[in-house]
């Protein structure tokens, strides 16, 4: 019988305790963050979307080689001596036209290994994390500042330059060979002359 009243009391009392707790929560500020409007600031070292600052890129291909999933593709063309590509922000001279710098972010595993080898700190992780696309091809980011036409143009220019250089070299080599031959001939002539004179000397000596 005592247990019966105890149960009754506990039934009412515990409900009141619970109600007190929920009533307190009625006035505690909510913890919801209204995501698209309010975003939690990202940590400083988060690894999200890659970005390449093409002004600083020297086309050294080190990031592409570091990438474990081969999501970076770089094509470069040597600049002509007459081209002035300027300098990077940390004073390195740019010597290559970067005709292609594609990052397939769909493949990217966000390991950040490409960031460390960069000599000019031009490839880095940003805090952008909303880049969903409907088409997978839209996830290939093209960073190259040159248009494909400009790229082929540069390539042709370089080929022409290369050909010219080749030709020059050839010409130079030929000239050198010619000079060498002439020299040899001259030397031979000299030697013959000398031999003749020696012979004359000998004969003179004999006569004496």
């Amino acid at each position, binding site marked *: 019988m005592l247990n019966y009243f105890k*149960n*009754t009391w506990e*039934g*009412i009392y515990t*409900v009141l305790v*619970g*109600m007190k*707790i*929920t*009533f307190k*929560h*009625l*006035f*505690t*500020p*909510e*913890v*919801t963050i*209204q995501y698209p409007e309010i975003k939690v600031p990202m940590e400083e070292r988060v690894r999200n979307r890659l970005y390449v600052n093409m002004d600083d890129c020297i086309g050294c291909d080190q990031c592409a080689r570091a990438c474990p999933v081969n999501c970076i593709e770089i094509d470069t063309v040597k600049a002509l001596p007459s081209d002035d590509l300027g300098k990077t922000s940390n004073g390195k001279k740019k010597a290559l036209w970067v005709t292609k710098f594609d990052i397939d972010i769909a493949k990217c595993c966000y390991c950040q290994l490409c960031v460390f080898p960069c000599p000019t700190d031009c490839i880095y992780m940003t805090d952008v994390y909303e880049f969903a696309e409907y088409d997978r091809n839209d996830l290939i980011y093209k960073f190259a500042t040159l248009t494909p036409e400009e790229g082929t143009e540069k390539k042709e220019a370089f080929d022409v330059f290369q050909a010219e250089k080749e030709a020059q070299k050839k010409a130079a080599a030929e000239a050198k060979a010619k000079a060498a031959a002439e020299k040899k001939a001259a030397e031979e002539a000299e030697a013959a002359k000398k031999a003749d004179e020696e012979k004359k000397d000998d004969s003179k000596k004999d006569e004496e």
Partner: protein
Amino acid sequence: MYDIILDFTGNEILSMFISAALPLFMFILPFALVAVLAERKVSAFMQDRLGPTRVGPKGLLQTVADILKLFQKEDIVASNADKKLFNLAPILVFAGSFAVFAAIPFSGAYIGTFADVGIFFVVAISSLVVAGILMAGWASNNKYSLLGAVRSAAQIISYEIPTALVILSLVMLAGTLNLYELTEMQTEYFWNWYIFGGPATGIQKILLIPFMIVGFIILYISTLAEVNRTPFDIPEAESELVAGYHTEYSGMKFAIFFLAEYANMFAVSAIVATLFFGGFQSPFGYLGDLFGVEWLIPIEQFGWFTVKGLFFVFVQMWLRWTLPRLRVDQLMTMCWKYMIPYAFVNLIIIGIISLI
């Protein structure tokens, strides 16, 4: 109210229809709109969330959007369902909960029927809901629906006993079944409310107070069980029975069930408020009396009635988000082993006190 409309329209049948439909369109529908939103907001705030915020300013139009969505939904009737009963069930459930409003005194100027059997009518007609729920569960031809319906029937019928016993003790004390007269007895100040012993005076009043509080607690718990609200929501326990008796319903029929549930919530809150908390009576005089403005009093009374009703609806929501669901055996234990004996003892003691 009927007389006013009769004067206005001059047609008895039409004015009857209008005065009968008045609580539906003036009260239940707006109440359901507000209460569904309030339920979601209260639950959200109790769980440190925000609740609906997208539709309208601060999410205020969320229920309107929900209703529009329900209007557009396909009305699915399962091919193996008993179509006649299936279509009739939501109407019956709603009719049962709507009929209760006929006897509830909203204010001094508006009461659906001035019936002398008021509270008895309420207890009787609200049992119609059980028939509707059983009908829905059976006609759905779905085991979850049937289980939900059977549980609901068992629960509602069981909890009608403590409800009736507490109401009986009050009726014994007041000597009337008429809800309007019951309210009029608790007039003037809040210490005349039945929770504080009613209009009795002296030693009788002091003796009555603890038993009235016990009666109020029993009545509140059992009415909570009668409207199938948490912690007594085993008929529609979503973790066990999908959605209970309305699993197979969609679109407007589901909306009618929903509306009936909210109408029921307010109805039982109104009954509790009328029986124990003075109904439409103000706890401390009226502004209309103070300024001598006659027509202000019914409006104030309606306001007080709404406030009291909404408060108990809020407590129902509060309990819902506080307590977990009871098991079936716990539910029955609570009813038959605890509440009915207490209600009986309470009835006898109040009877003895009223003899003093």
